[in-house]
């Protein structure tokens, strides 16, 4: 019950946000980007929060989906709504593949990290290298490609809001089914879970596929919303690090963690923005401090101080 009440509360609060910003394009952009970050964090929560799969290619997954959709739309003159699902599926397939191979080959944390890091750099260099299709570093203008509803300030906010709510509902549905039980078991101890008859490979691949599908969806929506995509938007520092910080800050393995973290990181980002390059330093320091001293995240703090059973 607490889960559905929380979902409703989160939904109502986020749905009312555009009314409070009073149509300012600046705040409208910040809040929409906050939703993108929250979607990414929900996706990463499945991967890392529940099944301890540290993917260092979140940006590349979102970027693969975004670039595939945009390039196909532009080159073949298709509607974005036909190519977005394709991009999402490819991201999901790639994530599932990495997970399957890593579980099958018995790769530990380090090797999965290195494989996905290598993929993320390969993606980056491919986008730079395939200049005729991607315009390299300059990027592609996505405005006016036909995804009208994702371009207007208010309609795009509600599209991403809908995506986030779908992600959260999907997440809670999964967590209250057998899959959730399996996730909890294998995040405690994989060997014990395997011995208890849980198909560890299957559930890790499920987590990775669903997470990567969500990354792909977030990436594709973001691509059409932001108007211009370039490889820098999907790099390690602009996606992976920020999402990692968001998830840990909010609270790993919880329903509202990604939402709280997304709000907190958006605020921090706005505070640091005037100082230019400072954000790299701040994110690095945050990553260290959070992992050393704040591993439960905001959710754990709220649970303790307000004595609420926050899901």
């Amino acid at each position, binding site marked *: 019950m607490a889960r559905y009440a929380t979902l409703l509360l989160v939904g109502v609060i986020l749905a009312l946000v555009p009314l409070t910003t009073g149509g300012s394009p600046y705040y409208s952009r910040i809040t929409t980007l906050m939703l993108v970050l929250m979607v990414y964090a929900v996706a990463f929560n499945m991967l890392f929060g529940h099944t301890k799969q540290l993917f260092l290619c979140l940006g590349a997954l979102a970027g693969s989906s975004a670039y595939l959709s945009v390039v196909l739309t532009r080159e073949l003159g298709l509607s974005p709504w036909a190519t977005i699902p394709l991009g999402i599926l490819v991201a999901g397939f790639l994530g599932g593949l990495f997970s399957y191979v890593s579980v099958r080959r018995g790769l530990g*944390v380090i090797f999965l990290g290195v494989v996905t890091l290598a993929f993320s750099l390969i993606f980056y260099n491919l986008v730079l290298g395939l200049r005729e299709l991607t315009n390299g570093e300059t990027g592609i203008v996505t405005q006016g490609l036909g995804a009208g509803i994702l371009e207007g300030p208010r309609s795009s906010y509600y599209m991403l809001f809908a995506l986030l709510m779908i992600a959260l509902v999907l997440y809670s549905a999964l967590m209250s089914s057998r899959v959730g039980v399996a996730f909890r078991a294998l995040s405690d101890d994989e060997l014990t879970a395997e011995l208890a008859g849980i198909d560890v490979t299957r559930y890790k691949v499920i987590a990775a596929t669903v997470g990567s599908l969500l990354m792909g969806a977030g990436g594709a929506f973001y691509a059409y919303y932001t108007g211009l995509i370039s490889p820098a938007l999907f790099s390690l520092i602009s996606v992976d690090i920020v999402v990692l910080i968001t998830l840990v800050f909010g609270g790993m393995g919880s329903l509202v963690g990604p939402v709280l973290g997304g709000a907190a990181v958006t605020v921090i980002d706005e505070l640091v923005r005037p100082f230019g390059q400072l954000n790299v330093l701040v994110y690095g320091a945050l990553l260290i401090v959070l*992992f050393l001293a704040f591993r439960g995240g905001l959710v754990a703090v709220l649970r303790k101080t307000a004595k609420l059973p926050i899901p």
Partner: protein
Amino acid sequence: MVPILIDGIVYGLQLSLLAVGITLIYGLGGVLNLAHGQFAVVAGVAAALLMGNGMGAAPASFLGVAAAGIFGLLIDRSLLVPAYRYRGEERLLLGLVLTLGLSFVIDGYLNLSHPNVSLTIRLPMPSLTVLGITIRSAAVVTSLLAILAFGLLFLFLRGTLLGKAIRSIIQNEVGAELCGISPSRTRTLIVALSGLLAGLAGVAQGLFSSLGTEMGVEFTILALIVAVVGGVRSINGTFVAGILLGVVNALASYYMGAYVTLIILLGAAMLTILIRPSGLLAYWT
């Protein structure tokens, strides 16, 4: 063809030098150091700042390399202490995240405070001719330095008691501890030593062309690729893998261009992990 191969071997020696620290820290400390390239940059920036204050190139480089060693020592005694409290996967994970954070802190700090500092060392004689082949003297100097460093490292690990102790920890940390070897003290030594080696590679980059504050990520990635292909626990493997990938890099960038080259190197690392996680050259070494 021959000049390309020589270029490849020269570059490969630098890659080995850069990567061996990752192998040492991973093998001994169980931490994959994602801030390793930044150690090299710290040495380069320190040397450049000293040279900017009027110091000669040789003493400045020496102090720069020493600065990277001290930096490694400090990091081991501060940032990595919480990671060492855990063992196995937990330590790997925490170490990975902490050093990733550290790499961004160093990059962010250097780009903010010293945005235009770069290290360029010019030798008095730009090139030599040996057997009809012209070689840049910087290539000769850096290769000799790398070979000297590796020679000393092998002598240290094979010939001294401390080296034996280090190899025993690489094989089995708990077993070594039961024999009365203190893993934490040897670990500090190794992280400092890795800092020195990375620093040497950083200064060598300054000899070749120039080293800027933004090159840390690139160094880390290259070092990681080499360490992975060599098998992240084998020092011999890292040495051979560095030279091999240096030659591959030279051939590929001559015949195919820069983007494809990096993709080939990254692909090699990915394939190594998938086919033979203990390193492509694991049998051979």
